[in-house]
């Protein structure tokens, strides 16, 4: 691949991810509104929020690590986008593989932990402790699921996994071949989004949005951008692993939005679990389903 073409892809992939991610945020808020019988926000609401937050006159920083933490939170996902193949563009997905992607998807939580640590707000500290506990909870089923898929495909290369599924047609999709792993993956994905009933670290009524409590202006704006990337990364990873990726953009976007709509629709119907309940649930059901699924694959 020509270097210019690669640079173009590496620039375009996060940009597309950001635009699609904003539409996903809008979809999430619209679904919440429909469930609560409201009208919901207008079409460009996520953009208004982000522009407004970045255009605040006073920006309250709590120090250098606070600034760097937010950059890490966004940068981890931006790096992850270049490893996620989209129709027509592979970026550096062939060289990276899923294991690198998994590592990169953990960086935002760690960056947030650094940034929140310097805010010296007890709510923030409790929130980030819960966020890392939640990461511990959902990463174990996620790793089992990804191991199963990679073992079945015989490769950790995401491009090859997608190519194998597309070559075999619908019957070769991960969700059809490995339904147990797909269900476990869906639960793990729901937990990794941090939505209800797994919303232990945001918890507005209890710890005042946890990690976000001291964030104002562009710092909160950075987290809003991060949320766009988070929704995109999670749903596209699931689509790539289990739904055969996308041959066309229409196909690809339809699948990613549909996959995201499942946890989001469930989310607004439930209150949330406590931390220990989340751990117990995540280490019991998705892990059990995932291990049985892996046993079938082996």
């Amino acid at each position, binding site marked *: 691949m020509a270097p210019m073409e690669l640079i173009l892809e590496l620039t375009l992939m996060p940009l597309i991810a950001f635009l699609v991610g904003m539409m996903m945020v809008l979809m999430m*808020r619209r679904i919440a*509104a429909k469930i*609560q*019988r*409201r*009208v*919901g*926000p*207008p079409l460009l*609401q996520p*953009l*208004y*929020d982000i*522009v*407004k*937050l970045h*255009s*605040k*006159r*006073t*920006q*309250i920083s709590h120090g250098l690590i606070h600034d760097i933490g937010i950059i890490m939170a966004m940068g981890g996902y931006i790096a992850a986008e270049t490893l996620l193949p989209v129709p027509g563009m592979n970026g550096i997905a062939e060289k990276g593989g899923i294991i690198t992607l998994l590592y990169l998807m953990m960086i935002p939580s760690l960056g947030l932990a650094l940034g929140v640590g310097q805010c*010296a707000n*007890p709510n923030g*500290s409790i929130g980030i402790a819960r966020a890392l506990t939640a990461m511990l909870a959902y990463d174990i089923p996620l790793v089992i699921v990804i191991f199963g898929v990679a073992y079945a495909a015989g490769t950790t290369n995401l491009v090859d996994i997608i190519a194998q599924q597309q070559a075999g047609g619908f019957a070769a999709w991960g969700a059809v071949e490995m339904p147990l792993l797909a269900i476990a993956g869906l639960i793990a994905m729901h937990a990794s989004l941090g939505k209800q009933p797994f919303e232990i670290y945001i918890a*507005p*009524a209890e710890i*005042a*949005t946890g990690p*976000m*409590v*001291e*964030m*104002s*202006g562009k710092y*909160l704006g950075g987290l809003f951008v991060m949320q766009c990337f988070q929704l995109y990364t999670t749903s596209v990873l699931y689509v790539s692993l289990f739904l055969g990726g996308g041959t066309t953009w229409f196909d690809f976007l339809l699948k990613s939005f549909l996959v995201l709509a499942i946890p989001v629709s469930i989310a607004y119907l439930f209150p949330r679990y406590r931390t220990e309940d989340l751990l117990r649930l995540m280490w019991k059901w998705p892990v059990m389903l995932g291990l049985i699924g892996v046993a079938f694959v082996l």
Partner: protein
Amino acid sequence: MSSINQIPVIEAKRGNPLSKVFDELVRFCRSRSLFILHYCTGCGAIELPPAMTSRFDMERLGIQPMVSPRQADILLITGYVSIKTLKRVILTYEQMGSPKYVIGICSCTVNGGMYWQSYATAKKLDEYMPVDLYIAGCMPRPEAVIAGLQQLMNRIQSGEANSWEDYFRNYDYYLGNQQKLFGDNWQTPTDIITEAKHYNLMGEGTFGEHTRLLEQHQKPLEALDMRLGHNLKEPTE
């Protein structure tokens, strides 16, 4: 400062011809995305849940509730403000990032309302912080709240809602009124004068006799102890 129109607005000179378009965009986005922090002090709070939920749905105007003052743009004071509450309201207000807007709901924030004769109630909210908008009524219906918020949106879009600058430019006036209520050794954790210097928001009224009084006893800010259950010091001490 009896009227908002008396506040001097100093236009910054911008060289770039695109800056006007950019400012327009920023003002539009600011008016369409308002995060409210409702400081529910009195009965007016009961009118906010219907304004936010399915009946009147504020989110279709881009208004959504936030839980921390750092994240919020609007401070909604919904009801009477006792002197003890007012301290917290001022601390909350000073922590918010500018541009910030204050809305007083109910007649209690306008003139004390039915608590006029109370010894422990701050009568007029705009003596202690610049108020952008009052929504009078006892209590105003959700329609009135939303109509008021729409008025604020129009003012933000046209660039008139600048009263947050007044707190920096006339800090001496507001501090004087606060000192009258809370005593001479009143100090908030947010250093408004340094902030005004940093953001170039100094005005003629920033300094005065009251700020001189503050500087006499002002203690430098220290990071809070991170232990839970530790008896945290009151910021007023």
